[in-house]
């Protein structure tokens, strides 16, 4: 049977406010356990939550960037359940009236793009962490994270494959970092995802029974967990069984999902409006103020890169994947005479490879855009070849000096005076008479061989265009 996959994602992104959503405690990651939990975070008797308006502003910015409606009045509710890392015995969240709703994002999928609906995004507080490993027979509770603001972004069930789900998650990830509302750090849990996955016979309108996959904290895990889950559901249905509605946990070590708890046993959260907090009012003037603060968003930037720098869509996509990469690229373009396409090739190629090799963010690149610009100018000038430039780039990366120093000290200048080139060409013609004869008999492929030999003889320093021209001229004699 031909199955259609139906996926909706719930993304929890931590908002990078200075203090928590309902208290003044710091949200800094990695502090000593329980050192950043004040009485409000600890759920002490008598304390009350006070909303951090910065979290509201961030949610509104997200709503504006995703074409959502902004609720003029939204409500915080209590989601009641017992767990030791939930100090109050309830989580303050938004239930019936979320702060933003009914929007979309366009997700680029290769050469096409697909519009994915955003059902809603609501504000809530994070819980603390339970640490089960380090305490023999007991569990540790760290409440530093308790009360950290989260924006839960719920998509429509419009994703049709693991690949689409991954692409959507990347789009949202890029967006929240562009907006500066989240650091998106997945290792630290700042960006987490649950996936609702079901399948149905293609053409059917009724949704199949879904499983909720939890704990998907990398793009790769999302894609793999969904692929596994889809296969599992197909096996069940084609074997005549029925998919159970349940929550499944993805185990990345074993690369499998397994049931966590069934929905039937799940808590009744007894949501009701939190009487400690007033409705959140968002005035039109605030929306307009925040709209003006929005940075250029990935879609717009991508389109501009294609239009202004005449880049292929693929290059523009890669260069705008993060605001920092796009900023680096634009810095580079203003600091070089090389074409934007050549600059793009260097950022996508050499620079990205070097960053990946050392797991560095582009902000921490060991070659600044101005320096790379200078290096590309040396290629433009004909001082060095592209190939030599890669060596120079690595030398700069290793901290061996600036562009000019390295070229000078290592004798890497390109050979472009006609006499030297002619000498190199003459030497090659003399050394490889057989190939010269083959060329003259019409076997033009050997030209490449001869150029290669000449370049090698020059230790890569000969200007390849000049070598090509002189060699052709001499062979034609």
């Amino acid at each position, binding site marked *: 049977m031909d199955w259609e996959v139906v996926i909706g994602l719930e993304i929890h992104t931590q908002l990078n406010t200075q203090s928590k959503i309902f208290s003044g405690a710091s949200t800094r990651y990695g502090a000593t356990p329980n050192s950043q939990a004040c009485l409000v975070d600890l759920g002490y*008797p008598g304390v009350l939550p006070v909303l951090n308006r910065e979290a509201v502003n961030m949610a509104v910015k997200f709503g504006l960037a995703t074409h959502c409606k902004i609720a003029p009045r939204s409500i915080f509710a209590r989601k009641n359940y017992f767990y030791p890392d939930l100090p109050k015995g309830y989580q303050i969240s938004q239930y019936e009236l979320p702060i933003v709703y009914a929007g979309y994002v366009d997700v680029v999928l290769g050469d096409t793009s697909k519009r994915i609906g955003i059902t809603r995004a609501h504000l809530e507080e994070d819980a603390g962490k339970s640490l089960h490993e380090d305490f023999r027979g007991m569990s540790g509770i760290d409440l530093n994270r308790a009360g950290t603001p989260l924006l839960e972004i719920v998509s429509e069930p419009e994703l049709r494959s693991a690949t689409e789900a991954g692409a959507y998650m990347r789009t949202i990830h890029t967006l929240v970092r562009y907006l500066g509302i989240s650091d998106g750090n997945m290792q630290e849990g700042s960006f987490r995802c649950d996936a609702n996955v079901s399948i149905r016979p293609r053409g059917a309108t009724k949704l199949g029974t879904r499983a909720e996959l939890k704990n998907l904290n990398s793009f790769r895990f999302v894609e793999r967990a969904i692929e596994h889950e889809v296969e599992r559901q197909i096996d069940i249905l084609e074997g005549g069984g029925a998919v159970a509605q349940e929550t499944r946990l993805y185990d990345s070590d074993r690369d499998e999902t397994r049931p966590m708890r069934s929905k039937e046993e799940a808590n009744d959260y*007894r*949501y009701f409006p939190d009487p400690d907090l007033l409705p959140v009012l968002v005035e039109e003037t605030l929306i307009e103020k925040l709209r003006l603060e929005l940075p250029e968003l990935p879609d717009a930037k991508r389109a501009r890169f294609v239009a202004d720098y005449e880049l292929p869509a693929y290059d523009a996509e890669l260069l705008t994947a993060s605001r920092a990469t796009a900023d680096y690229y634009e810095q580079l373009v203003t600091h070089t005479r090389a074409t934007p396409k050549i600059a793009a090739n260097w950022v996508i190629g050499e620079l990205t490879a070097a960053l990946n090799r050392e797991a560095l963010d582009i902000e921490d690149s060991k070659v600044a855009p101005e320096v790379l610009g200078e290096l590309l100018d040396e290629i433009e000038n004909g001082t060095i070849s592209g190939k030599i430039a890669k060596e120079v780039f690595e030398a700069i990366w290793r901290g061996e000096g600036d562009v000019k120093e390295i070229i000078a000290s290592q004798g890497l200048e390109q050979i472009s005076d006609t006499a030297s080139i002619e000498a190199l060409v003459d030497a090659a013609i003399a050394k490889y008479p057989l190939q010269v004869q083959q060329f003259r008999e019409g076997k033009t492929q050997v030209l490449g061989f001869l150029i290669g030999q000449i370049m090698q003889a020059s230790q890569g320093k000969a200007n390849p265009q000049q070598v090509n021209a002189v060699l052709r001229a001499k062979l034609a004699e």
Partner: protein
Amino acid sequence: MHNRTLAQLAAALRSREVSSVELTQYCLDRIARLDDELNAFITVTAEQALMQAAAADQRIADGEASPLTGLPIAHKDIFCTAGVKTSCASKMLDNFISPYDATVVARLERAGAVMLGKTNMDEFAMGSSNETSYYGPVHNPWDHALVPGGSSGGSAAAVAARLVPGATGTDTGGSVRQPAALVGITGLKPTYGRVSRYGMIAFASSLDQAGTLTRSAADAALMLGVMAGHDERDSTSLADPVPDYAAELEQAWDGLTIGVPENFFDAGLDQNNAACVRQALGELEKLGAKLKRIELNNVHLSVPAYYVVAPAEASSNLSRFDGVRFGFRSEQQSGNLAEFYERNRGEGFGAEVKRRILTGTYVLSAGYYDAYYLQAQKVRQLISDDFARAFAEVDLVAGPTTPTPAFSLGQKSNDPIQMYLNDIYTIGANLAGLPAISVPCGFVEALPVGLQLIGPHLSETVLLRTAHQFQLATDWHQRVPAGYA
């Protein structure tokens, strides 16, 4: 000395007739002598009180005193007090020393008031007789076989017995006004949000309001002036400026129209009580008020609506008492997490608290929420609308505070419905967030009866002025229970 009001004692302190240390010691001695039989205090903070009193005397000597400086007060044990046990009269918090002060406590301390201790109450403020306290019931100073009312029963009894001239209380459904009525003192519940709830252990957050238990409306004005005001730590606290309530007391009072809801005087009201209240209304008329018959048609729905909304909020508010971070933890610690919670909460909470948690959990459950919680919120709106309609025609509403005078210990403790009906006249003001005051207005068989005045949003000045005028013309509030004179 002990028969003097806060206002009179303030004058005595200022004239150096008595020092705060002397006054404090006098009250502490009286507590030591008389509270064994009343059980009004859970904790007496004698040492700290004498230190505060000495500091207050210094402030008075330095000419930096405010009206409450050096005056002894007591706090209901629902207010968090730094370094002092804050139990909410529950086994759950018997070992809880608060690390911080409630805003109400901090404001009164800043004004120089001297805290004598923490008063007994119904457990987590759930009760109308002070019989649900983990520390045992409080006895009514007028008759030790009777209840003082609740939940602020300890504060009420302590003030009525002249152990302390003023005390704080909290009023969620009548918990200040009802005990004030049953012990013959003045109990003020301000507008919802007028006084910060920060540090006041939550029972039902949308109804809870801190109030005062004093022997006169003038004293209530003095205390409210210090307690009221916006608090950035309580989002529901009101930003409106705080009037000088004490100064406003003396402003001209005439031309007031007082609405009398006739259905407050139906079969549910003890006929002797009714007679006292009618007589008090006559007194107000004599003082120049115009009485007007009004209808508050949905009052019969107030008790059922309240006993959905309040337990719903309580079931959630009390979830934090789980034995993980503070409070009671069962000695028996084997088994899984669910058993851990069940034991801590099962052993730590009393029967009435459990009843309300169960009720609240039920009405919020999926499938019942619409039928109970939402329905109750609609009723709440109807009751608010009734009051709004009334206040379009009248300045205040007046009627009984309670259906009967104080009842016997144990009389209603096994019949929750009868107990809950005690709050039938008081709950409306909480559901609508309105200010209300109970003042002594007579006696039935030697037991005090309360007159309740309810006003529109933020009408505390009018309420206090009216009560003050009434007290200038009557002496019910000056009657002292035998044995405490």
